[in-house]
């Protein structure tokens, strides 16, 4: 079926930055590159730019499809395109692969010009604050003083929030979806189990698996399987798989018996084929470190005092990884900081992953909010 509101063929671009970037960790990157995609046209006033921040395993490839691979549809293609809620006929939409990523921007798999080898474990850990700085530098290069909107789900929502706090004058609207103001002990615990799976894989070699010609595939696969459970809801797993057996009866062995096992292993395998383990480690740490209230003695309202943007916060009823209650915490602090903010909890059975899915009410809300953004 012809998708008339799809962007069609898109292609990534690269931008090189020569001035050193001082990271929150104290490390300095002398130069770096960002891989990005844009959709739509930047208007002469440069007032219609929308930045999409990606989540843990996302990339700059947000919408459209690559010419050489018809299966390469962008991860938020249902939301972005001509006539879609984030309408590329009105907005100039930008997707950037975060620094430390494995889809083209400088990261652990990139060649370190100082050594001529891949960074591997030498690539510094980065934070949402570091990303915010790279977004700002990127905007400067395109002459965009202020984004009409910065939008993201999950870690992407946190990155959007971080930019709105670190560079308030650069953001008019912030849309924070299925996110939280910081990770809980439980969230961090899940991330650490995922990291331990990778770090203890015999093929990990302290992160220098590239030069050993190995890949910590088992570890990354396990990490993703664990993560994937937290992205779904108990109900959606029950309705999709239940206790269904692949072969109808118990086999009394450790092979794949239940459908859910088959599904999770498939997801783990697929992910391990296309993602870098060091980037996975780095992204989970960026999540753990996110805590904008930290500089204000834990007072989120005080942290939000410097924001100038208007906010839209969205959550999903069945999301237990970043539950609606976590979004309400953000909303409460934004109201107390006298920011314009709207909040909706979207009924959904798909858990945390709901933010990626097409849902009438969700898309209607996004469409209505985007429509009222002046450009």
């Amino acid at each position, binding site marked *: 079926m012809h998708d008339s509101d799809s962007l069609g063929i898109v292609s990534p671009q690269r931008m090189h930055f020569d001035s050193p970037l001082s990271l929150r960790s104290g490390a300095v990157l002398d130069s770096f590159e960002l891989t990005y995609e844009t959709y739509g046209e930047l*208007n002469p006033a440069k007032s219609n730019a929308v930045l999409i921040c990606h989540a843990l395993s996302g990339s700059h490839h947000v919408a459209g499809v690559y010419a050489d691979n018809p299966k390469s549809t962008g991860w938020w293609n249902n939301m972005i395109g001509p006539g879609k809620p984030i309408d590329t006929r009105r907005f100039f939409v930008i997707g950037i692969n975060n620094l430390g990523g494995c889809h083209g921007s400088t990261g652990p798999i990139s060649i370190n010009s100082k050594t001529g080898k891949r960074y591997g474990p030498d690539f510094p850990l980065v934070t949402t604050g570091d990303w915010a700085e790279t977004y700002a530098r990127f905007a400067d290069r395109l002459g965009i003083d202020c984004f009409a909107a910065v939008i993201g789900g999950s870690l992407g929502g946190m990155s959007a929030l971080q930019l709105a706090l670190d560079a308030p004058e650069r953001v008019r609207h912030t849309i924070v979806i299925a996110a939280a103001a910081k990770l809980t002990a439980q969230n961090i615990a899940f991330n650490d189990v995922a990291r331990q799976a990778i770090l203890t894989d015999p093929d990990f070699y302290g992160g220098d698996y590239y030069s050993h010609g190995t890949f910590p595939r088992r570890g990354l696969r396990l990490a993703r399987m664990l993560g994937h459970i937290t992205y779904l809801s108990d109900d959606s797993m029950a309705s999709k798989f239940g206790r269904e057996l692949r072969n109808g009866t118990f086999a009394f062995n450790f092979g794949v018996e239940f459908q859910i096992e088959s599904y999770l292993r498939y997801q783990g395998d697929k992910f391990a084929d296309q993602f870098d383990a060091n980037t996975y480690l780095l992204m989970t740490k960026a999540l753990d470190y996110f805590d904008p209230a930290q500089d204000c003695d834990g007072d989120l309202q005080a942290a939000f005092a410097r924001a100038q943007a208007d906010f839209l916060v969205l959550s999903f009823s069945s999301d237990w990884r970043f539950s609606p209650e976590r979004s309400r915490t953000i909303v*409460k602090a934004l109201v107390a900081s*006298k920011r314009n903010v*709207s909040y909706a909890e979207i*009924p959904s059975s798909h858990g945390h992953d709901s933010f990626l899915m097409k849902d009438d009410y969700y898309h209607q809300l996004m469409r209505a909010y985007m429509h009222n953004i*002046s450009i």
Partner: protein
Amino acid sequence: MMTNEVSHTQLPSRPDYDAIAAWIKPESRVLDLGCGDGSLLRHLKNQLNVHGYGIEIDTQNILACFENGINVIHSDLESGLSGFGDDSFDYVILSQTLQAMKNTEKIILEMLRVGKQGIVSFPNFGYWKNRLQVFSGRMPISRCLPYEWYNTPNIHLCTLHDFEQLCHQLQVNILEQRVMNGERKMVLLPNLFGMLAFYRFSREPKTG
């Protein structure tokens, strides 16, 4: 810059909105509980440049608020206003929703915790046409009470006297009262001739 803001077309006349707007100072902070499609807040924003938020639980109303370009927060009023700090608003409005609340006392006290003043409007059950229908042996159905007894969301109907007595019990100070019948303000025997009642109240003792 090109703008694509919500058009401020002339809305149909809403005397009840005007009655509330007359009590609100320009530029104030307003919380509208059960804000529906956001049209009251939009009215107040356009007329008085208030900074406001609406609270709503119905998804289609929330979407309408988005379309109206007003701040709306998805929340259940019955569980209180825990998302809002003490004294964070100049006015907290409960427009034609009081009679549909389960926790009537709690919401009035919550209004005065987060707001300096509260404003409520509700259909006056003591309106003569309502009394007449009850007297003739039927539950009243009217412009303000359009539902059948079996499908009405209005579970806590009251008269002006009833509401004033509750305020007294809760040590809430009534600052101002207005009773309307359509566009007309009723002064004579309001509990008999008034269809819609409006009250402005506060925690503080009345001064001046």
